[in-house]
């Protein structure tokens, strides 16, 4: 199927093409909702079942990094919206600029996520044989805030009756399995989004997006906002619920 200018051969008009692409992206996002939905359901059921252990898991997360990341992501949504706006109103120079900003913010998010993951490895919070929710309170590093450690210990002790309790530990492990599955899949979506944005930057540097033809920017924008929204749900579920300090 040959394309004439911006119009692909299977379509009759540009409007038809735009309508199709937008509808296609919306449907894709619906499938994504269900995709994440399966995990959210698993999370919800286990949280209900192992209320305390999930609270313990939640409390070990670094709320500062989480909050910063949320802000970064919201900002990136804003710059993405600006990129779409610039494309629609014909501000050809601004399009790549905003896209680059979005990409940068996306990378910052992934960087911070990486730091968080690394912490989890250091604190023996990665599910597996060496998993140990007690590790951090038993092996605090000089960098750790002693007050926070004390609080965490109190929290853990309240939740657990004796140190040989396999209960809290294995259920906190369930929490971290879900934590990694959910944030990992989210990060994967971010990486795909970043790839799409890099492609958009290349096209927009050639000045190809005009008020008549800007569907790619628009639908990648939709996707990017969706990925942000997933985080907006993940953040409270994983970090905030059961936070006592």
């Amino acid at each position: 199927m040959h394309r004439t200018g911006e119009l692909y051969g299977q379509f009759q008009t540009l409007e038809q093409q735009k309508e199709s692409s937008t509808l296609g992206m919306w449907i894709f996002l619906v499938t994504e909702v269900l995709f994440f939905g399966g995990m959210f359901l698993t999370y919800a059921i286990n949280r209900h079942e192992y209320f305390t252990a999930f609270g313990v898991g939640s409390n070990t997360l670094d709320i500062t990094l989480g909050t910063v990341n949320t802000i970064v992501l919201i900002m990136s949504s804003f710059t993405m919206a600006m990129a779409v706006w610039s494309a629609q109103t014909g501000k050809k120079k601004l399009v790549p600029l905003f896209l680059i900003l979005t990409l940068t913010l996306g990378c910052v998010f992934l960087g911070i996520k990486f730091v968080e993951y690394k912490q989890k490895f250091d604190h023996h919070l990665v599910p597996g044989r060496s998993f140990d929710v007690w590790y951090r309170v038993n092996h605090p590093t000089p960098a750790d805030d002693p007050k926070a450690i004390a609080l965490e210990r109190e929290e853990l002790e309240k939740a657990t009756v004796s140190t040989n309790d396999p209960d809290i530990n294995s259920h906190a492990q369930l929490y971290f399995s879900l934590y990694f599955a959910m944030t990992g899949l989210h990060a994967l979506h971010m990486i795909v989004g970043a790839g799409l944005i890099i492609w958009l930057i290349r096209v927009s540097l050639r000045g190809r997006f005009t008020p008549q033809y800007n569907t790619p920017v628009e639908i990648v924008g939709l996707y990017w906002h969706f990925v942000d929204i997933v985080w907006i749900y993940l953040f409270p579920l994983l970090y905030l619920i059961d936070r006592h300090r």
Partner: protein
Amino acid sequence: MNQTPPSPGFHLPRDHYLNANYGIKSWLLTTDHKRIALLYLISVTFFFFIGGIFATMIRIHLLTPNGALVTPETYNKLFTMHGVAMIFFFLIPSIPAVLGNFLIPPMIGAKDLAFPKINLLSWYIYIIGGCFVLYSFSTGGLDTGWTFYTPLSSIYSNSAVTPAVLGIFINGFSSILTGLNFIVTIHTMRAPGMTWFRLPLFAWAHYATSLVMVLGTPVVAITLLLAGLERMFHLGFFNPAMGGDPILFQHLFWFYSHPAVYIMILPAMGVISEIIPTFARKPIFGYSFIAASSIAIAVIGFFVWAHHMFVTGESTYAALAFSFLSYLVAIPSAVKVFNWTSTLYKGSISWDAPMLYALGFIGLFTIGGLTGLFLACLGLDIHIHDTYFVIAHFHYIMVGGAVMGYVGGLHFWWPKITGRLYPEALSRFAAVILFIGFNLTFFPQFILGYLGMPRRYHSYPPEFQVLNVLSTAGASILALGYLLPMCYLTWSMRYGKVAGPNPWPATGLEWKTDSPPPTENFHVTPVVDWEPYDFLNRPDLGLVAGAPLAPAHGDD
């Protein structure tokens, strides 16, 4: 015999999609929906063979109570791989990805699907997923059952589960993208005059199917991903020893896999809704009811999943609700069966092969569907759950129904796809063989099931042997029934009689273009100004055989 003889002297059109360009690259990189459909045709046939060979080995093994052929481990792998190959890599893609892909654009007057590259991508995803699964089969296979129940699949099985699960996970995206493509195409690419209520019922059925693909598949994808992660990294989502819940896995699995059975049957129902009016030469009875029932099946089908779990210990209230809803979802199927039957009334019925397949479909689907009512009945399911009764139920629907519909559809559109006719007498013979072989294979299994033979048994008490032998005998006839069409359809691609654009004749838009169609489907964009399945006001079909009597009733 009684079909309108194609006027002698038809020639294949000079330019069509098959000779548009040549070479392996022109196929592997094509974005033409028709060529992609043929790629799918080859690959799903391959998987059907694989699944069929496993089925044959199952049946031979079950000839004697202690198993004649293989070890228990191997037997368990056989039925697992049979189920996986047949469900995920044959039946789910079969009608949508082959016939749907080929026909939806010409049926609605479009040049192609809305996203041709994504269409090609979904074939590649299918192939990659298929490779993972074949890898798993060839490195020893897997023995979890196609349902992958945890913790057996995630902890206890030591067969090649992980690659198979990943393969099915990947393959899911192929299904999602196909569904997405169909929905968008049907929404935005219809030719002028092709209103929603002029859409062929085949398109309606595919629209409903696509809804299920798009809404259901992601859930099974994530479920299998979680199970795969659980296996690879020893996590505990579904492992009771670590606090997980095996029943949750079943809920998530069936949330997709029940609707998935409608992915398999709805397209076949679409095929039947095309064949019946064409060979009865008469408008389909209750067009809007058939169209609406497709959507109703797709929607209600999402709310019956836990009828696979009546004896897991789920709450009595949940069981009551799911049983009730399962009966509800049977009603739209009933509507279809009755409407097809009524379409025959005062028709002008020909005995061509597609019609034989279609009528065979109605009979076998009805038996399969009606036995679903036994399973949906709470008190009865306590006894027949996980017995051969279930095996017979779903083979009646999936083999007797969906595969019959698929083969019938292949016959019906074969002239459109290849430009040539298949040998008529042989094809009727094959249809009859299939019907007989099928019933002999699977009817005894209903009785076996009620007698209490559990499924997935590599050995069984001797009192079940007679019925098992009957079933195996039937399977050999059945295999012949599949072998025949495979041979003569292949033969006809080269040697068949040239068909002409509309050999039957049929009223759909796809029959208005050449056979085989040109790459862009139509030389000029068609404009639709006729109602679907209207044989009377279509002088172009050459069918004005005397003035018909005034209609007895109806809203003509």
